[in-house]
């Protein structure tokens, strides 16, 4: 099932065109990797999906981005609703300077009036179990989140995100600050999560894309050069530029 579809998506930062007619489709319950050299527009594309680019002055978009049959680029889109549905995990793990518990219930407490202690407790337990942190942290919920290890912090950020019940998880180089062991554990987690979510991951790490993703898109200078099943992209790329990039001959 198509969850997100872009049609002739173009984006300008002022006069600079960062996305050039991107056509793509992201399927639910699959992990899609977006790869490409630095500055090709991967993060820009990702941040279109939850309209985080709106924060930047002088930005302009054309075309359509359809999520659940709605064009989210429409000016009438409710950003609060959109961002609850399409959540984001950032490159640097960035928990709030609050306790582990308060980090996870942050969204729920703001979104829902008079939420009971029991339902908050339940959300914390469920979210932490989903990111496989519950056993480690269940006795430390009142501790400051800033005391956790980098990997734990990043998992906590994912827990904080899934506590607001999104459908789509956008991940912008979520493992780039982690060591190889932590990275492979987070990848494991992503495979686990894809049963419930649509996951789009931006990564510089080609092995990672090959390991975790079902589909892959290759971008170059704002264009989506090739998009398809990861297996096909990595074994039989149709475009010469894709082949150059994945064999490391690019640039």
């Amino acid at each position, binding site marked *: 099932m198509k969850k997100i579809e872009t049609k002739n998506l173009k984006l300008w930062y002022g006069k600079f065109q960062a996305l050039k007619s991107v056509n793509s489709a992201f399927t639910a319950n699959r992990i899609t990797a977006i790869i490409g050299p630095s500055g090709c527009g991967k993060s820009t594309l990702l941040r279109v999906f*939850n309209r*985080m680019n709106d*924060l930047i*002055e002088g930005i302009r978009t054309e075309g359509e981005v359809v999520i659940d049959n709605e064009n989210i680029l429409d000016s009438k889109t409710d*950003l*609060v*609703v*959109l*961002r*609850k549905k399409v*959540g*984001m995990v*950032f490159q*640097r793990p*960035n928990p*709030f*300077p609050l306790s582990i518990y308060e980090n996870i219930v*942050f*969204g729920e407490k*703001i*979104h829902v009036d008079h939420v009971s202690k029991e339902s908050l407790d339940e959300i914390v337990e469920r979210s932490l179990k989903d990111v496989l942190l519950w056993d480690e942290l269940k006795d430390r919920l009142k501790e400051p989140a*800033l005391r956790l290890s980098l990997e734990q912090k990043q998992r906590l*950020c994912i827990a*904080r*995100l899934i506590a*607001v019940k999104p459908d789509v998880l956008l991940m912008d180089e979520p493992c780039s600050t982690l060591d190889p062991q932590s990275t492979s554990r987070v990848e494991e987690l992503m495979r686990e999560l894809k049963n419930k979510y649509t996951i789009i991951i931006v990564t510089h790490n080609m092995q990672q894309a090959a390991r975790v993703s079902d589909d892959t898109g290759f971008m170059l200078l704002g264009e989506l050069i090739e998009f398809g099943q990861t297996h096909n992209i990595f074994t039989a790329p149709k475009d010469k530029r894709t082949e150059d990039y994945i064999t490391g001959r690019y640039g």
Partner: protein
Amino acid sequence: MRNPYRTQKIAFSLLFLATLLIVVPVGLIVIVIIFKGFPAINWQFLSDIPRQGMRSGGIFPAIIGTLYLVAGAIIFALPIGLLAAIYLSEYSKENVLNRIIRLAIINLSGVPSVVYGLFGLALFVVFFKFGASILAGSLTLGIMILPVIITTSREALESVPDSFREVSLSLGVSKWQTIRHIVLPNAIPGILTGTILGLGRAAGETAPILFTVAAFYLPRLPKSIFDQAMALPYHLYVISTQVPNVDEKIRYGTALVLLALVLFMNLVAIIIRYQFRRRKKW
């Protein structure tokens, strides 16, 4: 040949001397005031009204007056200053208007306090017909400390990392909720520090209250915000220059109380800032 070690020694001594030059006057002022003023401090001095043409008795009405004025100034200046700071740091875009506002705030903090006094006289006392009153004096002091409060609050807000705002927005939290639940709580220590520094300044200034509230001699407590009041800095000025034969002890005692009040406020500000620096980890 130049001797690098000797040059270094000379430079070091000069730097040390300059630093010493700053510390010495401050230390001297404090020591002199404590030594000459301490003998005057007793319960009666702190709790009694001035008597015998201010030549004996206490300074209670002046202490209370100053506390009223400082409280009034903060009630007025903190909400306005904080809201302005939030607007400037979170909402306003970089444009000409914003730059003019910023320039105005910087210039406002450089305006001599006596000018605030005249302004308060013209606007609050005369135009709004508040008369010389606690209300007029508080408003005048409030305007005087607005720039400090806006500037420090704004710095405090801007020191909250953007990544916090970004995460919060990405969780579907609105901009105002983000400010309310993430930005403000993390900026509060800085805002408090600025506020208390402003308070210290408001407590010590004479010129802004001279025409707007300060009573020469009023041996009772004010009953409403439309009453005049005595205040420590003005009382000190009066007993030092306007009333002959006031015992030196009483003058320095008054100075000591004022100094202690202001130093105490600054100390609180320093402690808050220190605690915050220790806690902050991003």
